[in-house]
């Protein structure tokens, strides 16, 4: 169902063209986002939440400066007021500008991009979707020690329209579905949590529920949480480590994605998200990891969270190699950062919503598959641990010293899995860690996942990014569990 009238973005775009002020350059980015959150916790249906968020981001370049104004008021008066505010900010910023204003968007491109959604979200009504969640939640209460259990679905339908002074018109539409199953087990002072999602979020319709085999997960999720109560702590020491895609997602995100962002390298993020150990001269020469490390920026993967046709500055999205055979080739920076740095980049200037300006973001950042099956990787470990599903993450502001924790792990001895371990964690230094990459799973072992809550920027922005990866093997990592940290 819909609880409000979708905004026809052509209408405010037309209004704006009629009133656009006399300025050197301008762009208008309109967004209309409809979302729905359904959740069942402890067998109680939580309040159904619908939301619509509609607004405009006007960017103006004038008098040697650049300014923006975002408004939810799409009336003629509202857009005129915002345009004036953007113009005032351009003039205010001009004498203090960091760099001359770039061209605001592409030449006169007219294009549309839409992610496929085979089974529309509305194919099932809200009551039917709640019944599904009630059933999934009920199946997680498998034991008295399961003390909290929940199932939820989040859906978002996002449409944007970018127009500019050059005559560009770019329309894009995405449908995003994020499931979450979560079980909490407790006995005495020991509590363990196991989840499925939200790293399984992606673009598409209800067909994603089948793709993810959501119906097969509740007992497994709750069973894992229960089993972890009785598992020993993860062993501590310098051990071989296999990371499943549910942890590789975070490892790629924090220690490859963020360090390669050109705006970090240019210093924009130093007051908040941090800087980078990567410096401009490293591109084209720096060995980021072992020869098994291959990383692409690929906004064209069907169903991945951050697939799009154009970024929010209107640059056409293309697949690019960032790291090939271990060698660093290219950073994550949109046209503005590329011009400032003189470095190659990608179409990744993205904004979290209409009320924030675009900055360099990851989009889909994928670790390309290798030649080994998961069984091959396990057989290649004499003493080690396999870990899955991130639950804790921390890394320094240069994106070098990290410590991550997972929901669960398995001890590996003599090439075989030898039992569940709880509270697994590991730490390392990015620049050394990727050089210890000794095995990469094949295409059959690859999972397409993502991070829905990547925070960055001032003012702050939260955005979804996609990560696809197979399981990977690392040699000689500092591993620990629980009190051993």
């Amino acid at each position: 169902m819909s609880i409000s009238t979708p905004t026809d973005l052509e209408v405010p775009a037309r209004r704006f063209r009629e009133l656009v002020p006399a300025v050197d350059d301008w762009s208008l980015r309109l967004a209309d986002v409809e979302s729905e959150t359904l959740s069942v916790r402890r067998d109680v249906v939580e309040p159904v939440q619908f939301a619509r968020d509609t607004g405009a981001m006007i960017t103006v370049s004038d008098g040697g400066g650049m300014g923006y104004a975002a408004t939810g008021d799409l009336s003629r008066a509202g857009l005129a007021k915002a345009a004036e505010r953007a113009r005032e900010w351009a003039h205010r910023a001009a004498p203090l500008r960091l760099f001359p204003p770039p061209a605001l968007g592409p030449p006169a491109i007219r294009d549309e991009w839409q992610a496929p959604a085979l089974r529309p979200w509305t194919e099932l009504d809200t009551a039917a979707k709640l019944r599904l969640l009630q059933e999934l939640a009920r199946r997680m209460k498998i034991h008295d020690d399961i003390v909290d259990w929940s199932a939820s679905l989040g859906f978002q339908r996002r449409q944007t329209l970018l127009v500019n002074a050059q005559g560009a018109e770019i329309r894009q539409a995405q449908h995003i579905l994020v499931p979450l199953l979560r079980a909490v087990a407790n006995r005495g002072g020991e509590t363990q949590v196991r989840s499925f999602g939200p790293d399984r979020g992606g673009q598409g319709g209800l067909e994603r529920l089948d793709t993810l085999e959501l119906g097969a997960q509740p007992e497994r999720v709750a069973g894992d949480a229960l089993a972890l109560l009785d598992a020993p702590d993860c062993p501590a020491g310098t051990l071989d480590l296999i990371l499943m895609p549910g942890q590789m997602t975070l490892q790629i995100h924090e220690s490859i994605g963020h360090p390669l962002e050109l705006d970090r390298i240019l210093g924009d993020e130093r007051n908040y998200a941090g800087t980078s150990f990567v410096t401009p001269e490293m591109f084209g020469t720096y060995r980021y990891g072992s020869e098994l490390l291959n990383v692409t920026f690929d906004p064209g993967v069907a169903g991945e969270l951050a697939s799009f046709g154009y970024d929010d500055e209107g640059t056409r999205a293309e697949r690019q190699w960032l790291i090939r055979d271990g060698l660093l080739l290219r950073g994550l920076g949109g046209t503005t950062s590329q011009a400032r740095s003189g470095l190659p980049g990608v179409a990744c200037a993205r904004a979290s919503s209409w009320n924030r300006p675009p900055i360099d973001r990851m989009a889909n950042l994928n670790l390309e598959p290798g030649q080994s099956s998961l069984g091959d990787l396990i057989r290649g470990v004499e003493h080690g641990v396999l870990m899955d599903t991130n639950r804790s993450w921390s890394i320094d502001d240069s994106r070098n010293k990290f410590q991550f924790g997972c929901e669960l792990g398995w001890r590996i001895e003599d090439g075989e899995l030898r039992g569940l371990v709880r509270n697994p964690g590991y730490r390392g230094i990015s620049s050394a860690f990727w050089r210890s990459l000794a095995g990469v799973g094949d295409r059959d072992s690859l999972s397409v996942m993502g991070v829905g809550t990547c925070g960055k920027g001032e003012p702050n922005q939260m955005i979804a990014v996609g990560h696809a990866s197979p399981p990977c093997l690392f040699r000689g990592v500092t591993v620990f569990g629980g009190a051993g940290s």
Partner: protein
Amino acid sequence: MRSSLERAADLLHGLMQPGEAFTAYFEGEDSDFARLNGNRVRQAGNVLQQRLTLDLMRDGRHAQAALPLTGDPDADAPQLRAATDGLRALLPHLPPDPHHACAGPGTPGEDFRAGRLPDSRELLEVLTGTAEGLDLVGHCATGRLCRGFAGSAGQWHWFETESFSLDWSLYHRADKAVKGRYAGREWDPEALASRIRGTRDQLEIMACEPVRLEPGRYRVFLAPAALMEILSVIAWQGFGLRAERTRQTPLLRLADGAVELHPQVSLDEHSAGGQAPRFSPEGFTLPDRVALINGGRHAGCLADARSSREYGVPVNAAAERPRSLEMAPGTLATDEAARAVGDGLLIADLWYGNLSDRARCAVTGMTRYACLQVAGGIPVAPVEPMRFDVSLYQLLGEGLLGLTRERERIVDTGTYGQRSTGSALLPGALVRGFPLTL
């Protein structure tokens, strides 16, 4: 913005059918933002946004719709009607919600906190002028924030504040920097200039050759901002009633009475002393103060409206995370912190904290900005970034040597979605055995 909520509430009153009720929660801001790098403007602009969350109720059933408001009745009314109709059609298909709670009629609440805001041009001139020649990176936010609540039983709350916050780093080189902050409601250009000069003076020591520490345990002084980073991680689930009853709180052993913190440790949610609205999104008026830890012992939890119904306790929080955390002071003079450390570290800021072991209430994170080595009570050199991993039970238990008598109000400069109204009032802490791991 107030008129946006008033008009919406009037319209909604007229749309209600027999047996129906509504609540409406309003959030709005008119903010200027300026982002700087290299003491020059990187991005700057204005954000004007208003948002209403409508909760429609009937026969114990309810559902919510959040909508943008424009302030233009002709544009807003059709959206509110469509939302009401859509929710009305859905309600018969939903089960009753046993955990739903909203405030009944009561005394209308009004909280208007007028400020003297800077002109944006003046603000940038003072900031960049005082920092001329320095590598300043930072962010300024200034403007009006509003929150409101209205209900079909005549409930009404309004909160409006005019405030600003500046948050900057002065860089010496690479990752060597000092942090500065200035926030409030009464703009004083000389106060800003003075603070920038203060952070500039701290840069001198950052020019010294940095020390690379070995992992181990150190005697440290945690400035209030550093202590805030650790407490903010604990606060994610540590003080909420739902997390306590479902055994997820990292403070489980404290809540069970299995451990105690140092008797000097007392933590409250002090809504009356904070900068956030004093009502919840469901319209409940919040108590002035909720004791969370008292004399080192667990004292209470924050219960939002849903938890209050689920667990049968009064509502005492807008959400189950502190927005106005306050820690009792100690007796150590802040000026004496370096001398009290003797040989160890002065830590101005910590960063990127996360729970590393829930059962031990352990937090890991990094040092950032001015982390200084102290020898013989004198700061001597900056320290290369180090990772810590510490249990709160150790940090504020047997490891705690003292808290400062002076406290600092740390304003949450967060702007995810909208500007935050959170803040905390904290002392600094002198601690022994602080573990650095990498």
